[in-house]
């Protein structure tokens, strides 16, 4: 759209900043049939910077035209009609597309017989439930990019905790951490239980700009998270950090002071929520009176439980905070390494290793 002395000329195509190579149009195939609560889809609709409508309606310059296929927002009739683009993509007839997975990936290999942990529609030929795993096997190798939305899809999350019966895991555990999509990008992990709305939209916009040829690939860390979002700790963005510095700690949840003694894991968790707030700058975690339970981390939840107790090492660090700052930074680095790894029992082998015992009453 250009404006010349009071007249408006409306062009058929939205204008773009510059000429570049890349796709003009791309489809997002979103599957939330992992083991999930669908909270990431719900969270996404809370984003205003930008909102999903703005992306879909073409109001963000520099993006390809986006066809979003997500059950929340799709005006499709559903069932086979809704599944049609997924089926076309699996046959290789729809390109390019970004595959977004929400929810952890169950281990089907531990099931004997015909059962399933989760499915997405039915096989057109047999009418039997089509498992999530079959869909991923069909779609991931053809996808231009693969995005894991939320901690369940990135690292397994709550449903992959110790004692779970489904043996579920994150997408990169399932596809392999060295998996590369057609674009050359590995799985793009956007953790958060659920995703912070704007964190997700920002990442998606970057991937889309990259698809349009207008941006380099997004910088990811060793756990495949966007660096600019997860490069700092909770603590580094927390309103209460000044109290921490003065070793002035809350004794219970009635206090505006640092919550490390009542369960906050902020010092070793990679997350920007206290700084950014939850939506439109409002809410968050330690900044508004919620302990950080490490919900963005690969080792969530097991490494952080019980949540309401002081993290191990918290006492040491709070006692020696001022005199031994450098030592603390090193210790904290060690703990940060520890919580930045997933438990080894998340895998796709034929054995369930989560510690589940079906007859635990005895």
């Amino acid at each position: 759209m250009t404006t010349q002395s009071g007249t408006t000329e409306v062009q058929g195509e939205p204008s773009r900043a510059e000429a570049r190579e890349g796709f003009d149009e791309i489809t997002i195939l979103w599957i939330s049939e992992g083991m999930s609560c669908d909270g990431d889809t719900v969270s996404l609709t809370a984003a205003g910077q930008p909102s999903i409508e703005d992306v879909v309606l073409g109001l963000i310059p520099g993006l390809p035209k986006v066809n979003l296929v997500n059950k929340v927002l799709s005006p499709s009739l559903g069932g086979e009609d809704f599944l049609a683009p997924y089926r076309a993509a699996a046959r290789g007839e729809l390109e390019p597309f970004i595959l977004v997975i929400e929810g952890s990936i169950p281990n089907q290999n531990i099931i004997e017989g015909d059962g399933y942990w989760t499915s997405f529609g039915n096989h057109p030929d047999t009418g039997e439930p089509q498992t999530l795993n079959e869909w991923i096997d069909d779609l991931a190798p053809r996808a231009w990019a693969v995005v894991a939305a939320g901690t369940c899809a990135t690292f397994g999350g709550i449903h992959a905790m110790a004692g779970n019966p489904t043996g579920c895991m994150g997408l990169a555990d399932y596809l392999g951490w060295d998996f590369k999509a057609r674009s050359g990008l590995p799985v793009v992990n956007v953790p958060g239980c659920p995703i912070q709305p704007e964190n997700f939209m920002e990442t998606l916009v970057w991937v889309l700009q990259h698809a349009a040829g207008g941006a380099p690939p997004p910088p990811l860390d060793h756990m495949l998270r966007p660096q600019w979002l997860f490069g700092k700790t909770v603590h580094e963005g927390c309103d209460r950090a000044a109290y921490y510095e003065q070793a002035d700690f809350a004794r219970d949840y009635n206090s505006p002071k640092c919550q490390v003694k009542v369960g906050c894991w902020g010092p070793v968790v990679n997350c920007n929520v206290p700084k950014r707030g939850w939506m439109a700058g409002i809410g968050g975690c330690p900044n508004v009176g919620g302990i950080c339970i490490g919900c963005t981390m690969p080792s969530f939840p097991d490494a952080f439980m019980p949540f309401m107790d002081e993290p191990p090492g918290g006492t040491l660090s709070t006692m020696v905070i001022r005199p031994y700052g450098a030592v603390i930074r090193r210790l904290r680095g060690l703990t940060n390494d520890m919580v930045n790894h997933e438990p080894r029992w998340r895998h796709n082998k034929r054995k369930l290793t989560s510690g589940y015992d079906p007859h635990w009453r005895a």
Partner: protein
Amino acid sequence: MTTTESRPTERKPAQLVDMSWDPITRIIGNLGIYTKIDFANREVVECHSTSSLFRGYSVFMKGKDPRDAGFITSRICGICGDNHTTCSNYAQQMAYGVKPPKLAEHITNLGEAAEYIFDHTIFQDNLVFVDFCEAMVKATNPGVLARAERTAAPRGDIHGYRTIADIMKAFNPFEGEVYKEALKVSRITREMFCLMEGRHVHPSTLYPGGVGTMPQPNTFTDYLSRLMRVIDFIKKAVAMNDDVFDFFYEALPGYEEVGKRRILLGCWGAFQNPDVVDYRYATMNEWGRAMYVTPGVIVDGQLVTNNLIDINLGLRIMLGSSFYEDWVNEEPFVTHDPLGNPVDMRHPWNQTTVPVPQKRDFEGNYSWVMSPRWYHPATGEHLALDTGGGPLARLWSTALSGLVDTPYVKATGGAIRITLPRGEKLPETTLEWRIPKWSNTLERDRARPYFIAYAAAMALQFLDEAMGMLRNGDTKVYENFEVPDESIGCGFHEAVRGVLSHHLVIRDKKIANYHPYPPTPWNASPRDIYGTPGPYEDAVQGQPIFEENGPDDFKGVDIMRTVRSFDPCLPCGVHMYMGKGKTLTTVHSPTYGANHG
């Protein structure tokens, strides 16, 4: 076809077609609806509801620190995770013997009120109403749309739309005015929520024993100013919904039969009264009745009980069509409640979940959902209670009990009067919801905007009281407690779409057993051991079909309206139509519908 054409009275030879819609829902399960439809007589003959997702909370919570329960169970649901956290905290507070400070109860109530307003709005306007919007009605009942264009909207002075068709247009997805405004409203109301509970979907500031939210004047004024920004939207929503649903009864005589069930409603109560609640089991009847949404079991229009102790003892979790092993031969965890009443082996306190993945078989086991039922002591029936999508049961139970009497909301025995203050455009308004004649699709949907108004009105009261406390310097929001070695607890609450209970058994300071029962298992349950269908199945089975399309281009809008009227636990569209129907058999005179009262 005219809109007032009467349905066939003489039965024709049945023309049965298999039709299914899968996937439908996503939040607590992947829902599929499988039906047989008789196109000759235009009715649904059979319905099965199936869920194909298992996640296993009651399994992996065993052995965990009980204080973690609220943080974990929030993750059951990606839209009403806060209802789970709240309910878990209620159950824990009973088990620990701790009573949170009053201000914490107000803050929790305010968070829950914002949640109800947010969730019901996005669900009704962006998902349910798509079934009643211009584009959909045009595709399914063009005659009805033509009539809507000629019909003046009776409440146009409130909502500003001239005809019924104008309202329908405003709900067209992505383009309609109301559709777009509802998305914006859903962000404002989520901000209100975050002010109280930190984060939306999985709250960060709720703990057993209270909240961590810092009470300051701006905590409450930030909330109030946002609430006032949506107050006129709420008044208009009620008026628009009433106009459209009244029109449907008029344009399609017999529409009251769509989704109609025997009146079997359950509500577990919401909004604790901070002056009364102490979380003790022994006094649960007293503080349960003091809640600002009154719990109750309603059978055939009569209130059977509003005593949470009776409600608790009547819970039964049945198998019959589900992928689990039975636990009936295990040792019970709890043989008697704290008052000495016997506790059944099928009660959640005694349940053991052992998943057995297997092939889906509609003649045998076909769902990951179990079948919760309520045992009616007077008749010995195991009732497949439904929640009416939440609002219908809440309003019905509250109205019948006649216990709520507050500055903004009054229950009168047969109705509820809700007063909302003056907004930017509209004056102070009193709305009245009256107990309807039927428990059916349209009344489930109609109740929803009224409950949005109800939640907004209650929020005003909680704000008044919280501000009063704050100004008096009473800012305590958390109370410490010890986790006992052995204990039991139960929490009763309303998730947005209906009844929610959490049952907890602690041994050696660890979780020995934990069972959350959200509304979806109640509504989406499959046939139980007695062959009793779950509420979706029962409501759809035997319902008439008004859609004008035949089997080849059938969309199933009447069926999807019914399923959606229960708010199937998700913010996503309930998706329609699986493909061309396959003609099964042509048989004479099926005898369906007989089980519908």
